[in-house]
């Protein structure tokens, strides 16, 4: 029984819990999750998000299949490199508010915040490929917006429950992600 209690949480449950109840995951699970796994979550989430944009433009005959593949690749690089870099920037800012969280924790929790985007992304791709829907807004944007809640929780945790600071930083991060997707995704 004790061994069962100590067993690490399955990865799919970490993703689902981070989407539904980020506060509990941040307090108990993030420190046990490899930052590499979190970066993969973010990379795959953005890959699906950008892929949906590419597919939408392909379906309306505005772009070719090469663009779709390149979109997915750009998304993976964006989620795997730009998001951890953004996390690093937020870590630096949080140090002004005497944050005691280390960089690995910040990257891990920041990237895991996009767990909702990953789940929405998987659903979006299914609807896009099986039913032929255009899903970049309904599933893609909604998924990325869903990350705002967990992001606020992460920044709150980093800044010692400073609610307003977390709201302001999350707003800036959200706007950066939105504009960068607009530029890179060709939306």
């Amino acid at each position, binding site marked *: 029984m004790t061994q069962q209690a100590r067993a690490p949480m399955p990865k799919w449950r970490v993703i689902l819990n981070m989407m539904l109840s980020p506060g509990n995951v941040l307090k108990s699970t993030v420190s046990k999750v490899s930052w590499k796994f979190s970066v993969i979550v973010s990379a795959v989430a953005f890959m699906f998000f950008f892929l949906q944009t590419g597919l939408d433009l392909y379906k309306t005959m505005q772009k070719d299949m090469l663009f779709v593949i390149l979109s997915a690749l750009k998304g993976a690089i964006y989620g795997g490199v730009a998001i951890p870099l953004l996390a690093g920037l937020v870590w630096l800012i949080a140090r002004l508010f005497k944050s005691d969280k280390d960089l690995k924790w910040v990257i891990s929790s920041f990237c895991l915040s996009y767990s909702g985007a990953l789940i929405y992304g998987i659903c979006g791709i299914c609807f896009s490929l099986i039913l032929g829907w255009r899903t970049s807004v309904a599933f893609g944007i909604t998924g990325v917006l869903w990350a705002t809640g967990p992001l606020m929780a992460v920044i709150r945790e980093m800044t010692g429950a400073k609610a307003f600071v977390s*709201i302001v930083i999350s707003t800036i991060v959200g706007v950066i992600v939105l504009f960068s997707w607009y530029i890179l995704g060709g939306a």
Partner: protein
Amino acid sequence: MEDKWSKFKAFIGTICFAVFGVVSFMDINYPDNPINIGVGIVIGLLFSFVSKKVLSILVSMFNGKLKTTHGRKIVKEMVSKTLVYMLPFAVMAFFSTYYLGWTANSAFVSSAVMTCAALTAVEIGKLKEKPSIVDTIATTVSSSILSTVWVLSIGLLRVIPGYVLAIIKLVLPLISQFKI
């Protein structure tokens, strides 16, 4: 000080609803159209009022005890306070509509309402010895209803600015005649 801060948070939340109204009623051909902006603000504020009421009523139904221990207005205060978390969504909705030219902004409203409702459940849970799943269910259900109502009603209410313009065009000549 705490009271002023709570009032400020509630005020920001109300402004966010007004922003959602403005972006939802934006005229693509004339983004600065004062009639659309005015109607958007009014509808946004109306929805803010309805949202606060619906959330408060639903959460209050399951938290009778809390009212006796923390005061009659505790649930209403909690709901108003957490609406400040709409700010990132309102700012993103504003930028996406006015700078990126998107018109599909219902996702911002839905996400904002859902996030705030979830946070209301968290805040209510902090006041209790043991957080209850019932609060989470109540806020999730109410936020789902509210965002569906918003998405469906905005489509129907988009005709209002046209009616307002027609009324103005009808009334203005009458007023000018009356002045003479």
